């Protein structure tokens, strides 16, 4: 067994994509080979013992040359350290982990809805769907704080042949408002849609609400604190909807769930 854990991955490229948003390209051939869209990796952020735990990041892109990309926003100490990584540094990464999106071959149109760092897995997902021989409609709706932080990502989607619709909180690009506002405008009401979404909980709750009304199916990618990422610590529990005192685990049963498996409050 040859694991990415055997030795740390080299950082071959670092990009700053707007305020506090960074993209790292890592050499990790086995992860690149095994990854499915919606899966994640566990990344060590410090050489020492503080911060102690790894941090989960969605797989943002993979490339044939054995590289894997993660997209990250600085929100605390671990992400700050990762943002300071320089080309040529080595960081320890393992994965791919978790259950990704399930993509049908045909019969449905697909709408990807991403908000903030939730956009990360959607680029990989879009590419995967397009390459899978999927024959329906595929659209992408992306939400961000401001235009700046979405410019490069938008280009990457365009590069795929997808023309994402944009919503920003400050109106500096695309629609001034919520990404969910874009759904009715872009999704033909009389067709069958599968919505695949990743982003902040309130955004996904909004997406799920619309999907329920329209009777569209919807898969959501959840976030929790994680210690192990592999089903061992039981730290990433979230309630099951039928019984609030019965739990499922985001790292193993997810991070992607059917919307009906989630408690929306």
């Amino acid at each position, binding site marked *: *067994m040859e*694991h990415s*854990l055997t030795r740390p991955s080299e950082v071959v490229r670092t990009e700053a994509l707007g305020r506090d948003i960074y993209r790292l390209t890592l050499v990790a051939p086995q992860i690149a080979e095994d990854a499915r869209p919606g899966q994640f990796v566990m990344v*060590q952020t410090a050489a020492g*013992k*503080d*911060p*102690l*735990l*790894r941090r989960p990041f969605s797989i943002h892109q993979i490339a044939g040359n054995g590289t894997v990309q993660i997209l990250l926003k600085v929100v605390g100490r671990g992400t700050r350290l990762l943002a300071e990584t320089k080309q040529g540094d080595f960081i*320890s990464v*393992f994965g791919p982990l978790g259950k990704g999106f399930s993509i049908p071959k045909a019969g449905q149109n697909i709408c990807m809805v991403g908000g903030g760092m939730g956009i990360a897995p959607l680029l990989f997902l879009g590419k995967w769907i397009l390459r899978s021989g999927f024959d329906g409609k595929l659209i992408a709706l992306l939400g961000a704080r401001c235009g700046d932080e979405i410019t490069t990502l938008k280009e990457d989607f365009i590069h795929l042949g997808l023309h994402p619709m944009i919503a920003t909180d400050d109106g500096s690009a695309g629609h001034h408002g919520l990404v969910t506002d874009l759904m009715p405008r872009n999704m033909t009401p009389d067709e069958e849609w599968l919505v695949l979404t990743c982003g902040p909980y309130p955004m996904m709750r909004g997406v799920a609400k619309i999907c329920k009304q329209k009777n569209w199916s919807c898969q959501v990618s959840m976030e*929790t*604190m*994680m*210690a*192990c*990422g*592999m*089903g*061992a*610590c*039981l*730290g*990433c*529990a*979230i*309630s099951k909807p039928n019984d*609030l*005192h*019965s*739990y499922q685990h985001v790292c193993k049963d997810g991070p992607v769930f059917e919307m009906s498996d989630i408690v929306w409050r």
Partner: protein
Amino acid sequence: MAIEQPDLRVKIGGLTLRNPVMTASGTFGYGEEFASYVNLHRLGAVVVKGISLKPRPGNPPPRIVETPCGMLNAIGLENVGADRFLTEKLPYLTKAKATVVVNVLGDSIDDYQNLAAKLDGTPGIGALEINISCPNVKKGGVAFGTDPLMAEKVTAAVRKATTLPLIVKLTPNVTDIATIAKAVEAGGADAVSLINTLLGMAIDSKTRRPKLANVVGGLSGPAVKPVALRMVWQVAKAVKIPVVGIGGISNAEDAIEFLIAGATAIEIGTANFVNPRVTEEILVGITEYLEENQLESIQELIGSLVI
């Protein structure tokens, strides 16, 4: 000069372990989770997540929070229960040729005793580890492990119910852990393991709420190592049965320190989350240390502290 491979075997009651490297309960799932990272049969033993008679859902989230060089957990002893453990989890471990130690927990002495009886004689189980840090429901929620009399009682009850080697796992949240260790020795334990987690807490200064839904949780990881090492040393001096050292072990050097302090074996917990292969790496490191120091057997290392 060709050196023989050093002898790593250690004994716990009637059970001989290939080597002293075990996993700590609750940090290694039911073993299968780590199968693609670790050769389970190479480990001294796999100690599985704590099992109760009936399945338990565990606590509401958030259940974990990181702390300086450590973490707090309030998993709340979520587990599949004894029946599903035996039918769904144990067979995999048996097939993988792992030495299995089952961590058991209960709310009352009866619970412990019934569970031990149920597991007794099951092929594939090497030993039981009795977690007496659980709150005793009948005694108002005070942990069995904080009172020497209760600790001895629960040990003696389980001792009667099983012929399996019995490791009693001690809580560090006590004034005098050596007294508790002596009590469970008197109760018939074949070994003691320590430490379980230190009770801790974290608060979010923005929301002014506890960071754990359960308010308090158990501290583990490198932060607790000095406390664990001290307690292992104190207990190893106080009892005649083997001591299993646990607490903040992240590499071979840490493990060796516990062996020197008097531990016959060690368990690795939180470090599995940081590096899923750490157990095998520690095994390699211990072997190298013995070779470099020309020790033929791990026995020469155990309790070799020079004061």
